[in-house]
């Protein structure tokens, strides 16, 4: 091949490489292609535990802001030719650098527990973050998006394989499993010996926490992702059919339902018999606990997918756009607290009047709920 021919071939190769780059960049335009994670924080003994975007569990001493990280959770499964497969904790572009962690860590005794998108559940020592056990030990289950609950030395979690798992919290040995008809992304709730969990199969299940037998099921018209809230013997659960349902704990019968304009994704909170239900239609609804009548609605200019927190006489809510509001329970007024200009999808955490918000830029944002003062963020990245 002469020089001119080589030059032409070179140009073609260059053109193809450019096209490939444009294609890859274009594919990144669709948000949500790769898992990032939205782990909330949990606090015990002045230490905050949170899952990071690097796929690690970090323990932050809130007194001196010193941090301690675990080893990154191990990626598994297909990652695609360019490492771009969004499955099983791999990621590319704007995705997570490590295994995505969605569930909030849970502290129980001397152990802290976390479940990863790689389909494994981990138990670490709270002080040293040394790994105590992992389940399953060898292989991997389907990804975990929902969080863990623990009671009576038992750990409960739902997985993308549609199974509810009960493990021995001390050893990680399986105790029982319950199969639903579709994926589970929600976190279960324990109340009076019953485990409540929603599934993509549109059902809310009430299981006997002791043996995993089904006590009743409640069918909605949409998939369920939200975490159930139990209050005064009633389960409150949001569904993709745009309804918030109130279901009797004893027999699974419908008490009332409240319809909004989009999905109820986040778990509501209840204060003084009033339910504060955040919705993806940009509103937070206040609803009477006893009959489901709407008391008020607060337009926040963005969808709310994170669980609010109650601080003194205010409900602190963050929209997915990163704007934080305070809704006063006494004056019913909404006040703007902060705009982080970052996605906020995970639950908020409150400790001693400070609200902690995990943002995708790998930092933990802090707001003083009483004064609205924004405190210096804490980096969750192990490299910083």
């Amino acid at each position: 091949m002469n020089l001119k021919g080589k030059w032409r071939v070179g140009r073609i190769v260059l053109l193809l490489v450019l096209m490939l780059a444009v294609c890859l960049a274009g594919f990144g335009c669709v948000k949500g292609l790769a898992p990032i994670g939205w782990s909330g924080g949990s606090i015990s003994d002045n230490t905050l535990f949170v899952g990071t975007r690097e796929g690690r569990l970090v323990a932050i001493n809130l007194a001196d802001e010193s941090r301690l990280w675990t080893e990154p959770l191990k990626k598994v499964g297909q990652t695609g030719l360019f490492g771009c497969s969004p499955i099983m904790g791999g990621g590319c572009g704007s995705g997570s650098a490590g295994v995505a962690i969605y569930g909030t860590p849970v502290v129980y005794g001397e152990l802290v527990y976390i479940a990863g998108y790689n389909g494994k559940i981990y138990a670490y020592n709270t002080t040293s973050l040394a790994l105590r056990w992992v389940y399953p030990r060898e292989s991997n289950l389907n990804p975990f998006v929902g969080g863990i609950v623990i009671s009576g030395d038992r750990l409960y979690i739902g997985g993308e394989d549609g199974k509810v798992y009960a493990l021995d919290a001390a050893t990680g040995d399986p105790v029982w499993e319950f199969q639903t008809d579709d994926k589970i992304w929600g976190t279960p709730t324990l109340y009076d010996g019953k485990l409540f969990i929603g599934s993509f199969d549109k059902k809310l299940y009430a299981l006997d926490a002791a043996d995993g037998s089904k006590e009743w099921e409640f069918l909605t018209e949409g998939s369920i992702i939200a975490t159930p809230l139990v209050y005064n013997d009633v389960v409150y659960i949001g569904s993709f059919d745009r309804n918030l349902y109130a279901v009797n704990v004893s027999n699974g019968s419908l008490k009332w339902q409240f319809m909004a304009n989009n999905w109820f994704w986040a778990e509501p909170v209840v204060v003084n018999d009033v339910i504060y239900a955040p919705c993806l239609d940009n509103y937070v609804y206040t609803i009477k606990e006893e009959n489901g009548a709407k008391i008020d609605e607060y337009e926040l200019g963005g969808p709310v997918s994170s669980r609010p927190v109650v601080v003194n006489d205010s409900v602190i809510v963050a929209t997915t756009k990163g704007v934080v509001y305070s809704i006063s329970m006494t004056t019913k007024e909404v006040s703007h607290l902060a705009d982080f200009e970052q996605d906020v999808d995970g639950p908020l955490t409150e400790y001693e009047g400070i609200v902690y918000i995990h943002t995708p830029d790998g930092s933990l944002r802090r707001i003083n709920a009483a004064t609205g003062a924004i405190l210096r963020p804490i980096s969750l990245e192990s490299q910083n």
Partner: protein
Amino acid sequence: MNPWELIIQQPVTNVLIVMSHYLGDSFGLAIIALTVIVNICMFPLTLSQIRSSKAMQDLQPKIAELQKKFGKDKQKLTQEQMKLYKESGVKPAGCFITMVIQMPVWIALYQSIMLALAVAPEGLLNLSKYLYPWPIVFSVLPLDRSFLMLDLAQPNFILAILVGASMWLQQKMSTTIPSDPRQAQQSQMMLWMMPMMFALLALSFPSGLSLYWVANSVVRVVLQYRVTGWGGLRRKPAETTADTDKKYVKFDESGEKKSVDDVGADIVISDTDPDRKDIYQPSKPSKARYQPGKDRAQRRRKK
């Protein structure tokens, strides 16, 4: 929501979700059906593109001859090429413009598929802001990702092979290998590189996207077949034009006056091996060849 999302992405996404519901909750069938429907809607543009492309290919031998003739004089070459295009009624930019018009539609379709597929939890959350307030849309989500034993959210090797094969088939049908060895080499490279590149991409992205690529290529193959037949699958490089072995200029013996538009229409050109002895070749090709303007002037003088 920006105008692009509001006008293009949102409607396509909602239509895709509703179609999925009416096709037995099968997202795979919805992808295929929407790809076919969009192709039908764009049929006039596609037809124009195929025809322009074919006309361009048919002119390749003549362009090659012009390149040989005016290779050193770029300005003259451009003029002659433009003249040839004009005389043949071919718009070189037509093919490109049609592609540019179609591109946003394909991008929207791709984005909608990826949105509706909602591979990661963030994707499903993001999808909620694109939904119309139709009860059916809310209830049917999240969509069932399984289709013919495939998980549409995961890359699939077989589907990646199908992407490459169907794309190669479509390109092969629409491409004629030029007789110029240099151009033929480039053409061959493109014929293989593009399908290979897409097959590699398919290995890295959810197979729902691969399904869309395969469906699109199959529809294009059918359209191509209906318009031009098997095209490049049958033709051989040496058979790109009829009578290519002839190396002479065929003058019109009837003496009828040709219109200006007919100039060049009666030229039969070949760039086969000039050393061949079994065919007639003028001893001084430079004099015998058709020279625009000069020959016409001679013919006028004879009359």
